[in-house]
């Protein structure tokens, strides 16, 4: 490792731990920091800003060691680093190279045989970029929050919560608490990004979940907020169940949870990590089912081999099957003709046997083990264990589905709007939902083509459903929430069709413009005091900064730009996704349908985003009262908007005159061999995940994607303008004309209702049945038992009184009476005592002489 790279883990570690420090400080000293805890906000903001500075420093260090090449010159001269572990090697030209990465084990928490639970970091270009993005967006949100949450500095009257006597709830402000949660949230997300093994990933994964729970339920007095928090948490549990399954499958298959290879102090390989197991360099980075999974799948064959080896072993031959040796050695010793063989075996095999006994069946039989090892490639070529890899991938993706609000589990994200708006921005842009996409991208090497296909389908379904729902939503934050779900669908879709870079690129650009859009909506809500777009309108005259920065956000999310020349950040990322989709369609004509949906989604996105913008800022005010009270937000809120707006515009561009761009930075982290057109589907015949480079290099895909997306988006914008900007058409007419579709959309495809009737209601009924059973059967039984116990106790009590007590009383009485009688013996008469003494002496003498004869 180069010297400067040695500082990288430390820099990122500091950047990661600073929010934790802020969290701890605010927990203990928050209320003491200024009036109402004002200092807590500054502390948290300062912490995250320091993290940002450190992340930038880390990025600088990284870039100084890994100079970027221009994205167009990517083909043959790619930058490359040898080992994935601590060692950094000079560039070696290789078509499919292992990305430069640092795997550091900071501290081993525990080691169970092979499973090491450690605090480990996996640092590559993606980690560095994520750190920069998360800390930047979080910094903006922190600054914005100091303005947005100022009401919490003093006592709050919550008009949405009525106390028992009908008045509005009054409660102390929770300014400190808000910032302490924000800090914890940032810490969790950064830890997730930095994590070097799946156990740590899971821990921070859950920490992110709990932070989102706390923040969504920030106004927990509101029933809707507490329900939304519960919903987010419970729905995520469903996903996490799948994730646990995936984790267990991964652990049992790989024998480790570490992403990189574990080495000891001398740099020797201790244990191969997940990535090098699943994409071994020997196999030219093709997807390889790890040995553990092959063995598990071929368990029957292995045991048969073991049995054969056992049966074939000649009696005197040295050790094949130690167990049998041990069992039969006594017989040998008794049988004289074989005693020589037994002695030979004993002398040579005994120590080995003792050592080997601890190990598994295969290890106990070296010969059989050798056979098994010989057969492993053949089994692997026959697809043994492949399904296990698929299950591991699907399970892990299941967790991502929950966290990133993908199709079956997307219902929680719109409800999560109950939290304060900066929280929504943080969840939607940088932390919670990004975690799912990030994890899919991080574990990309271990996803089989079938898993990627599932990811693509899920993403496609999600983007379409969410986009359609967003059309009819009137709550400004809900529109944005569905937009987020839809864009996350895009990312998943991109990852699924092989666009690793495209998906991540979109994650980054989306983070900027979605944070921008949310903060803008927060500004609007702050100004109007309502979320309902039907009460807004014409606000651009009152709050121009908000309006135009939001317009930038809308344009960015639509992918606006001059096709093939220049565009906002969304243009580049969406373009990359769609080009990859076209590439995928060319490679798999059977699955081309989903590509069409992706293009359709682009149009719908443009439509609902401009519908939202036009309804909010353009036209005439719909509610005079709200309009009159609306005002531009203070500088601390507008400042972040401007910063984010600039980023939303430029984050897709390379730095002029250099090769430095987000895309080329991420390109450095591209997993070796993943999405390189190498892997063929095994379970789904003919499935090919095309190489992402193809879509870049082939101008046909690129051009057609850019033009089509532009056309579709333009169509969406125009439609929005027709309905809402230039009210040539009344939306009501369309609504009536397509009443069934409208009700489908306005009811969010009845997903909540379906879940209610399919899952919640049966569960409730089951629990009611259980409760009934409890009351009728188990309670009856318990009551009966209690009654029987009471009866027995009464009997016992009577027995106690009549027998035991009486016996004891009698004994006591008797003792007392005896004592009374015995008392008279002590007369106080000395002479009597003397006489008794003498008589006793005589008696003793007689006794002794009698027995001592």
């Amino acid at each position, binding site marked *: 490792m180069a010297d400067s790279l040695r500082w990288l883990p430390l820099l990122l570690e500091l950047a990661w731990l600073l929010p934790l420090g802020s969290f701890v400080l605010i927990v203990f000293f928050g209320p003491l920091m200024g009036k109402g805890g004002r200092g807590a906000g500054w502390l948290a903001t300062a912490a995250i800003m320091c993290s940002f500075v450190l992340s930038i420093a880390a990025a600088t260090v990284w870039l100084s060691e890994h100079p970027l090449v221009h994205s167009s010159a990517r083909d043959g001269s790619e930058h490359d680093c040898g080992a994935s572990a601590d060692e950094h090697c000079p560039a070696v030209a290789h078509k499919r190279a292992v990305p430069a990465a640092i795997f550091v084990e900071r501290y081993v928490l525990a080691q169970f045989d092979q499973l090491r639970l450690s605090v480990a970091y996996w640092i590559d270009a993606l980690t560095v970029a994520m750190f920069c993005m998360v800390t930047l967006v979080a910094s903006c949100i922190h600054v914005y929050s100091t303005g947005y949450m100022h009401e919490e500095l003093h006592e709050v009257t919550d008009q949405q919560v009525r106390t028992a006597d009908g008045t509005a709830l009054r409660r102390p402000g929770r300014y400190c608490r808000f910032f302490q949660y924000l800090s914890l949230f940032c810490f969790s997300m950064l830890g997730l990004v930095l994590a070097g093994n799946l156990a740590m990933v899971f821990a921070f994964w859950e920490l992110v979940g709990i932070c989102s729970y706390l923040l969504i339920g920030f106004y927990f007095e509101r029933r809707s907020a507490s329900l939304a928090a519960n919903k987010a948490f419970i729905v995520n549990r469903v996903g996490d169940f799948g994730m646990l399954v995936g984790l267990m499958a991964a652990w049992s298959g790989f024998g480790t949870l570490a992403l990189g290879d574990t080495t000891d102090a001398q740099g020797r390989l201790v244990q191969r990590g997940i990535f090098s197991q699943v994409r071994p360099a020997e196999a030219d980075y093709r997807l390889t089912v790890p040995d553990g999974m092959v063995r598990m799948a071929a368990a029957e064959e292995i045991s048969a081999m073991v049995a054969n080896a056992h049966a074939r072993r000649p009696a005197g031959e040295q050790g094949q099957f130690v167990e049998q040796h041990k069992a039969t050695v006594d017989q040998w010793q008794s049988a004289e003709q074989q005693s020589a063989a037994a002695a030979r075996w004993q002398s040579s095999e005994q120590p080995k046997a003792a050592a080997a006994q601890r190990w598994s069946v295969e290890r106990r039989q070296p010969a059989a083990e050798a056979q098994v090892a010989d057969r492993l490639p053949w089994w692997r070529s026959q697809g043994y264990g492949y399904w296990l890899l698929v299950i591991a991938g699907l399970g892990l993706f299941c967790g991502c589905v929950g966290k990133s609000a993908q199709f079956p589990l997307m219902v929680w994200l719109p409800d999560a709007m109950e939290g304060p708006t900066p929280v929504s921005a943080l969840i939607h842009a940088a932390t919670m939902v990004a975690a799912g996409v990030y994890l899919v991208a991080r574990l990309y090497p271990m996803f089989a083509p079938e898993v990627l296909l599932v990811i693509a389908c899920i993403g496609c379904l999600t983007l379409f459903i969410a986009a359609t729902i967003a059309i009819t939503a009137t709550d400004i934050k809900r529109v944005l929430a569905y937009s987020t779900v839809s864009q996350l669908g895009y990312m998943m879709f991109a990852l699924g069709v092989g666009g690793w870079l495209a998906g991540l690129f979109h994650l980054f650009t989306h983070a900027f413009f979605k944070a921008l859009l949310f903060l803008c909506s927060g500004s609007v809500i702050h100004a109007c005091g309502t979320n309902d777009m039907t009460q807004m309108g014409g606000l651009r005259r009152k709050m121009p900064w908000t309006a135009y920065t939001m317009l930038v956000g809308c344009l960015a999310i639509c992918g606006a730009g001059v096709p093939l020349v220049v565009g906002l950040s969304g243009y580049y990322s969406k373009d990359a996704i769609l080009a990859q989709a076209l590439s995928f369609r060319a490679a798999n004509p059977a699955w081309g349908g989903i590509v069409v949906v992706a293009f359709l989604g682009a149009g719908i996105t443009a439509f609902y985003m401009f519908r939202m913008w036009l309804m909010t800022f353009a036209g005439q005010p719909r509610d005079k009262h709200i309009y009159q009270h609306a005002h531009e937000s203070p500088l601390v809120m507008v400042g972040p908007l401007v910063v984010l707006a600039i980023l939303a515009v430029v984050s897709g561009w390379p730095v002029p005159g250099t090769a430095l761009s987000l895309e080329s930075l991420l390109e450095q982290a591209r997993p070796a061999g993943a999405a390189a057109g190498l892997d063929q589907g095994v379970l789904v015949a003919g499935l090919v995940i095309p190489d992402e480079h193809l879509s870049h290099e082939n101008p046909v895909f690129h051009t057609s994607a850019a033009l089509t997306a532009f056309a579709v988006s333009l169509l969406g914008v125009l439609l929005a303008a027709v309905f809402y900007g230039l009210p040539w058409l009344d939306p009501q007419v369309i609504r009536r004309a397509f009443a069934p579709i409208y009700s489908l959309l306005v009811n969010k495809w009845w997903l909540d209702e379906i879940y209610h009737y399919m899952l919640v209601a049966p569960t409730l009924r089951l629990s009611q049945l259980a409760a009934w059973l409890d009351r009728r059967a188990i309670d009856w039984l318990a009551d009966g038992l209690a009654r029987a116990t009471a009866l027995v106790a009464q009997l016992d009590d009577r027995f106690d009184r009549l027998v035991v007590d009486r016996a004891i009383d009698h004994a006591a009485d008797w003792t007392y009476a005896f004592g009374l009688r015995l008392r008279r013996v002590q007369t106080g008469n000395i*002479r009597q005592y003397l*006489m008794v003494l003498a*008589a006793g*002496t*005589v008696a003793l*003498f007689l006794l002794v002489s009698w027995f001592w004869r």
Partner: protein
Amino acid sequence: MEAINWHSVFFYLFAALACGAAAAVVLCGNIVRMAFALVAALGAVAGLFFLAGADFLGALQLLVYVGGTMVLLVFGVMLTSHSPLFALRSGAGHWIAAVVIGACLLTVLLRAALAANAWASPPPPQQLPPRLQPTTSQIGLALLGVRTDKLDRPDPVLQKGMCGYLLPFEIASVHLLVVLIGAMFLARTKRRMAATGSGSNSSQSIPRQLEIGNANRPHDAQNPTCTPPGE
């Protein structure tokens, strides 16, 4: 006809005197007579000691018992002798029980005394030492820790003349001192109370005495005899 063994004669004489006087002590009802019978018995025992060759012990018996203890006893008798106390007699039942137990005890003791043959066989007259050997100096040396009477025994410790009684001697002397102080204390404090009480009436009673004790308190308070602690 053998010659009369005067040793035996005197033994029987003193033995009879001792036993008779002892029986007299038992049988007498008068405490003063009992005291004089006891003096006789103890004197006879002193004679027996002389006959056994324990000259110093016999003298000690005469000095301490007859001369000291008996004087003390008689002194006590005279201090406590009032006419009603002379006739303190036990009942017949007590006497019967006492005689029965005494007979049993006597039987047991005599049986034990006659059981050992070695004790029953006195030495032939020619083995007896020709004349009385004074034991005074031997006892004095023994009390100072040197034994001279067992130098012929095979035990090497005894041959060195060790195994004396120096420590018991010291303990006994300290014991005597303590007893002296204790007896003085016991008798002195009460005597003062008794002296004030007996001056008014011979037939005292406890409440009366307590009254007197209380009456004395103010006097004590005026002339404080108690010394401050620590002096």
